[in-house]
């Protein structure tokens, strides 16, 4: 049996990987939704939030269909020698998809709060849009982006439904805290399960507590 802390470490590492994966896309989508009008805007807005409302198991199944060897994306990746399904990579991807809505919603609110006067003045000072983004919009929205990332990370930590479908519960390979708790409970190892629950509580508490501090600092 794997130690509780080993499972915890694996879970935190995957959640961190998922956060790194969702940040560039999430921040870009958040900024686009906050600042740009483009065709299909409301579709993107809805799609991004979908994992928040859909049963996670359904999201997992969609990912499985997409990423398996016979799937559209999975077939392509297999030819490149990359296998996703039932590996730690599937854990990271499932976590990223499930955390993305929280990141996007929080970061978007942050970008919307930035007074567009600053961005407009920066343009008259000769800054092209990319420079405005990195020197004005992003730094001013930074507390919200960070809070969104922490929320996404926290959501990723607890991810279960999508993970178990697309990555399974392979000890030492894809077994996260949530999946391990389920597996232990299923096999009657209640004491093990409780230990992992306590570890989960500590990690989730720290993640949410930091997110709240960041949001408060922004409001101050």
């Amino acid at each position: 049996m794997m130690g509780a802390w080993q499972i915890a470490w694996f879970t935190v590492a995957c959640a961190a990987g998922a956060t790194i994966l969702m940040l560039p896309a999430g921040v870009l989508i958040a900024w686009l939704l906050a600042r740009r009008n483009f065709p299909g805007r409301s579709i993107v807005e809805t799609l991004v939030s979908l994992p928040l409302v859909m049963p996670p198991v359904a999201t997992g199944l969609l990912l499985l269909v997409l990423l398996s060897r016979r799937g559209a994306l999975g077939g392509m990746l297999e030819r490149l020698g990359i296998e996703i399904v039932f590996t730690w990579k599937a854990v990271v991807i499932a976590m990223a998809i499930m955390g993305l809505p929280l990141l996007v919603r929080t970061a978007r609110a942050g970008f919307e709060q930035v007074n567009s006067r600053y961005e407009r003045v920066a343009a008259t000072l000769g800054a092209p849009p990319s420079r405005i983004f990195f020197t004005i919009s992003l730094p001013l929205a930074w507390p919200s982006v960070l809070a969104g990332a922490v929320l996404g990370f926290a959501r990723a930590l607890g991810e279960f439904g999508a993970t178990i479908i697309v990555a399974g519960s392979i000890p030492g390979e894809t077994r996260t805290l949530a999946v391990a708790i389920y597996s232990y409970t299923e096999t009657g190892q209640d004491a093990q399960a409780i230990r992992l629950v306590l570890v989960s509580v500590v990690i989730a508490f720290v993640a949410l507590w930091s997110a709240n501090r960041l949001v408060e600092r922004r409001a101050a």
Partner: protein
Amino acid sequence: MIAIDIQLKQGAFSLAAAFNLDARVAALFGPSGAGKTTILDAIAGLRTPDRGSIAIDGRLLFSSDARVNVPPHQRHVGYVPQDVALFPHMDVRRNLLYGRHPGISPDLERVVGMLEIGKLVDRRVTDLSGGERQRVALGRALMSGPSLLLLDEPLAAVDVPLRKRILPYLGRVRDDLRLPIVYVSHDREEVEALAEVVVRIEEGKVAGVDRA
């Protein structure tokens, strides 16, 4: 020489303004809501007119017929908005240097000296008084090496005694840097103190052009 002939509609408000300016300092004068700021925004490229054209010294910045619309960051137009909008996450020095273009921009020393903001460069912008913010914003616009300076109500945010102290700085910008200035004001005294030409704007239209 600035040649403007623009039309735009926004909700119930419509603007149709055409005028040429050959003066060094011109004021757009009129009551609030008349469309003065909209004209400045159009010159700076921050708002796109529905139709018309804008040219500065023969350089076409906007033309609906020729399908020209130079983006704001390529217009070389310095713009100080009414609320000055100093970047709150940067100190005064980084604000001043934000738009610096080597080869085009004036020396920082010269701008700082002219506006007497040398003592402020290491301060946070949140620690500045209204008059200081105004001068720093002016300096920031000048440091981008613009070919035209747009000022939106440059003296509205400062109290009356301070206005008399800021006016000379605007005069120095006009005379030392030989930079054409277009500014918006609803204050007759302010207009008379600075402008060579006054464009009276009323209800989205040019009501008259006077030489001071």
